[in-house]
């Protein structure tokens, strides 16, 4: 038996390893997905004022600082038992939608896009944003950069800083916005909606018009029948900032819908000896291993799953795209028949991008966001609180317990990617099984297709260490499993 190690996986936050155990006949015997995850954040929180966490947590994840800021802020609101003023809630949600518009843009064009726009078999050196721009043109590149800047500008106006917001406090926000700032956000929202339409066109022209890519999306290699999780608003529509958590079964039926504070009644965590990262699963279904189906508690929390649990989108263009997405992939415009194709997550992300842009424009036009009443100063303390938002890469839970002075005594976090730990492992294994056959050569393109199964989840595992890590090659190490000797090292 040979062991193939893909380390580190390219274009993912933090470093992960994929171990593929290949039999002498070339077939895949097993797959382990291992993450040297940064540990100890829960401990790090202890002894700190709970209101500090909305600012510290932005340093924990280099990918979703805004998501951590929001989840921490909501948990701190709950710790102090305070309902924030309507203007504060609307401003937070507006900022969050603008963040989504930028983040989903980055993923579609810079991370996931290269696989489709440049092709899975293109040389690694071309599978990046520069390769995408070489295909779609400089003007498209300028649009992408401008869109990213728009999201940052809205965060700067409402959140006080461009990348890492600082304005959320227990009870609301430390400041409101001016009429001039509102006008600027409205203009940004209008430009975002135009960009969303452009992105739908790129998706149509580059991905959906290419039958080979559509076949790849729909192939069994990238399909898993798991449960799905996501926040929904009171109309059952997709929402990112606040709502109830809805879970649906692989057949599309509703499994549960609950308030964030009750999450522990529904979610438990499985531990494997080879990974620090836990494997969340649905408590009432149970952990049955890395398998899919109605009897397995494995669930996904991603753009794909958010669309699957919802009854639709709250804005018109996004709703039209939602219907087209389901009609194309399942033949059912309502979404009642869930999509289980991992690679369709990229398309689901575009549907969400359209929604985030429309919602930014819509919410910017609400005159209530100009209210100076953005903070209800807490007068008491509950001592425990849960905050859940949808991070771009999955349901994000912050749960804090404090003493009577608001000093954190216990913290529990389930981050977006952690939800997907089990399905990611399953997706990699399935992709490898479909691609690695007896006698087949493990080419760069094959390895990339395995990684594609992984990248669709837009994962982040480590944190925002910015240290120069040295050259980061994709290393493939082939071991003889019997003797442990390295028989081949391939680098790209």
């Amino acid at each position, binding site marked *: 038996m040979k062991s193939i190690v893909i380390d580190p996986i390219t274009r993912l936050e933090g470093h992960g390893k994929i171990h593929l155990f290949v039999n002498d006949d070339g077939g895949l015997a097993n797959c382990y997905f291992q993450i040297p995850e940064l540990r100890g*954040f829960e401990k790090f929180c202890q002894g700190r004022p709970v209101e500090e966490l909305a600012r510290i947590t932005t340093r924990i994840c*280099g*990918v979703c600082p805004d998501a951590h800021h929001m989840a921490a802020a909501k948990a701190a609101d709950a710790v102090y038992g305070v309902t924030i003023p309507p203007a504060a809630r609307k401003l937070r949600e507006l900022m969050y939608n603008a963040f989504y518009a930028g983040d989903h843009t980055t993923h579609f064009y810079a*991370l996931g896009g290269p696989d489709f726009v440049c092709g899975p078999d293109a040389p690694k050196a071309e599978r990046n944003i520069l390769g995408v721009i070489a295909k779609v043109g400089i003007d498209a590149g300028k649009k992408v950069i401008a869109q990213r800047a728009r999201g*940052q500008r809205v965060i700067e106006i409402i959140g006080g800083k461009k990348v890492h917001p600082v304005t959320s406090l227990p009870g609301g926000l430390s400041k409101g916005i001016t009429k001039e700032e509102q006008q600027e956000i409205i203009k940004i929202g209008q430009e975002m909606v135009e960009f969303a339409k452009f992105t739908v066109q790129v998706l149509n022209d580059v991905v959906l018009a290419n039958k080979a890519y559509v076949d790849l999306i729909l192939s069994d290699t990238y399909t898993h029948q798991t449960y799905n999780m996501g926040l929904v608003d009171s109309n059952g529509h997709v929402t990112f900032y606040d709502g109830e958590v809805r879970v649906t079964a692989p057949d599309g039926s509703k499994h549960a819908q609950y308030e964030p504070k009750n999450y522990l009644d529904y979610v438990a965590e499985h531990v494997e000896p080879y990974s620090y990262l836990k494997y969340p699963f649905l408590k009432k279904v149970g952990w049955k291993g890395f398998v899919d189906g109605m009897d397995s508690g494995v669930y996904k929390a991603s753009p794909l799953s958010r669309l699957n649990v919802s009854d639709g989108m709250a804005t018109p263009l996004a709703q039209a795209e939602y219907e087209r997405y389901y009609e194309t992939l399942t033949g059912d415009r309502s979404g009642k028949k869930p999509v289980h194709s991992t690679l369709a997550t990229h398309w689901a992300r575009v549907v969400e991008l359209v929604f985030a842009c429309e919602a930014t424009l819509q919410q910017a036009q609400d005159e209530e966001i100009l209210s100076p009443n953005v903070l209800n100063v807490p007068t008491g303390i509950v001592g425990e609180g849960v905050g859940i938002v949808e991070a771009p890469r999955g349901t994000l839970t912050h749960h804090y317990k404090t003493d009577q002075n608001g000093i954190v005594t216990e913290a529990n976090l389930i981050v977006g990617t952690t939800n997907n730990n089990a399905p990611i492992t399953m997706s990699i294994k399935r992709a490898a099984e479909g691609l690695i056959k007896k006698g087949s050569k493990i080419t760069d393109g094959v390895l990339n297709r395995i990684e594609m199964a992984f990248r669709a989840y837009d994962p982040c595992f480590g944190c925002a260490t*910015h*240290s*120069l890590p040295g050259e980061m090659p994709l290393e493939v190490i082939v071991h003889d499993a019997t003797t442990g000797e390295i028989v081949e090292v391939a680098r790209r």
Partner: protein
Amino acid sequence: MKPILVLCLGNEVLSDDAFGPVIARLLDHSAYQHDRVEVMFAPVAGFHLLDLLEQREKVLVVDSIQTGKVRPGTLHFFPMGQLAPSKGLTTSHQINLPTALELGRKMGYQMPDHIDVLAVEVADNTTLSEELTGTVAAAIDPALKSIERWMAAHSTETAI
């Protein structure tokens, strides 16, 4: 053009990864003020660097590095692009610095012609802590002297 930039990168809560922010804090002192030089701390990478680098003629990036080839606390000084480690400077979710520079130029942005990197070899950049390790902390003074020389040279000359 904007002033020459000393860009300190890093994460304040990840042990030695805080080298950049610590240096930025110490440079925020009258002894280190030079005409035409701006010091900035940014806990960012990738696309975000585009905005910071645009319209800068010269930049000194102050960061941490992990080559594993020298003892922790060793200072590396090199022009961007001449050493393989300069391919980093990124959260891998984002794009790296050379890609950001090339992207910026392709988009018609005015990107720096001259980027130097001063990076300290780390002992630990994964433990959540607001303290540098001892060997890396000992590199602060030599780093400040090196930065001072760079600022003095570049604030009076247009080309080195």
